[in-house]
């Protein structure tokens, strides 16, 4: 295995568990061999270090490498406890930071009592209440910035993403050059100017073609 080349496998060596593994091994995880390949001695060291890991550490390392985590068991008592801690953590957050969340709760009071919403954020942060509370605040802040106040407390639908305003804006941006060309060719004095100065007309066409190529349409 070539470890000196920057391949996708370099991601295997960036996790915390890999650092533990490296510490257990007692040296740098990437050996500086001349040909970039592990020799037999290094292989033996690697195998020994792997064998020294506990089952839990090995599982965590596998999760880091493959990006697969175990599902956390959700008992009703555990979930209720975490949701309660998350609500307390939300109250501790600075009121200026949670402005969007407060607005959402004011407009939709059921949100504050909705355990399903809290559980979604807890699952996303592996049941760490403080992190989940911060994520919830950031979620509503980002939603407000992206979609505005009108959709803060609503489900985002396909129509919201591809709204008429967005489509018109896209048409306007892409059709601007076409409108410019039509107008410039339609006005007699401009048309005569373009006929006299063909290089200018060519520049306009090139700029239009360039813009469309950049968007992958030409």
């Amino acid at each position: 295995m070539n470890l000196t080349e920057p391949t996708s496998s370099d991601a295997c060596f960036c996790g915390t568990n890999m650092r533990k593994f490296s510490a257990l091994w007692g040296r740098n995880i990437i050996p500086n061999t001349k040909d970039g390949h592990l020799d037999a001695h290094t292989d033996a060291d690697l195998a020994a270090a792997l064998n020294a890991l506990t089952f839990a550490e090995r599982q965590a390392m596998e999760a880091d490498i493959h990006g697969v985590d175990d599902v956390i068991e959700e008992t009703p008592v555990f979930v209720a406890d975490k949701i309660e801690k998350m609500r307390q953590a939300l109250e501790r957050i600075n009121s200026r930071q949670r402005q969007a969340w407060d607005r959402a709760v004011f407009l939709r009071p059921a949100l504050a009592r909705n355990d399903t919403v809290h559980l979604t954020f807890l699952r996303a942060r592996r049941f760490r209440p403080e992190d989940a509370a911060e994520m919830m605040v950031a979620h509503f802040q980002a939603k407000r910035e992206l979609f505005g106040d009108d959709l803060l407390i609503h489900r985002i639908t396909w129509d919201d993403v591809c709204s008429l305003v967005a489509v018109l804006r896209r048409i306007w941006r892409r059709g601007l050059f076409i409108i410019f060309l039509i107008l410039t060719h339609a006005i007699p004095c401009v048309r005569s100017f373009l006929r006299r100065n063909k290089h200018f007309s060519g520049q306009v066409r090139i700029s239009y073609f360039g813009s469309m190529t950049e968007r992958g349409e030409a």
Partner: protein
Amino acid sequence: MARLSRYDLSDCLAFARKVWYVLSATEDDPIMQQKGLVTVGDYRGSWMSSPLQLVQHLSAYPFHAIPIHMSSLHALYTNVFKYDIVRIIRLASPEEIRMRNRLHHGSPIEIDYALRSFGIDLSTQLLRESFSSTDNLSDHDEDIEDDIRQRQRLDDEWRQSEAPYRDPRSPIALVPNPQDVILGRNKNIASTWPRNIMYNKLVKDRVDRYIEAQTLSSGRIDKTFIYCRKSLTPVSCLEMRPTGLQLMTQKLK
């Protein structure tokens, strides 16, 4: 696995909105929430956007705000320069993202091989797009359209479930409708609500006339008020109660 269609990188916010929409599908799927999500971003191709746009695009990506556990984030590149820039950006990113992020670079076969080591099989799509066969591309587009149709069906179901509350005559309000005037002591929110702005403007415009009208009969004042109300119809007032928002039927009658 959700798929995003080709997008215009120059509009970072539009891309962020689409990502938000696609990933919000997990709101309906508790199994996906528990197990997490593996995302694959296909950034292959030539450098179509400036480095500044790429940085803007990465900063606009609402990674920290979408309530989903990202098991891993795979990004595919064929452009060496783009790949190197993203690798440098990754070094400056938070540890949580750095740990989960995997960058792949090379030909479609090399990328396919790398993805297979993570248990992801995208060989059909990778090869089909590299040969850019028209028939296969139409199949791919159909897949995307199927996903969108499925999401739109869920959107319609949600709209139907909330339809009774969107009726202005409904006595219970889950959320204020655009035609509602919100009554309450939260000045920051109430002052920015569209109908409240209109209502305040109406009061402001008529306040001088109201003061002058003290000598007139009360009947004329009422008529003026009724006339103003009709210009705002349909209008309903909501008041914040401990149980939630409640329609105030006697406020404007």
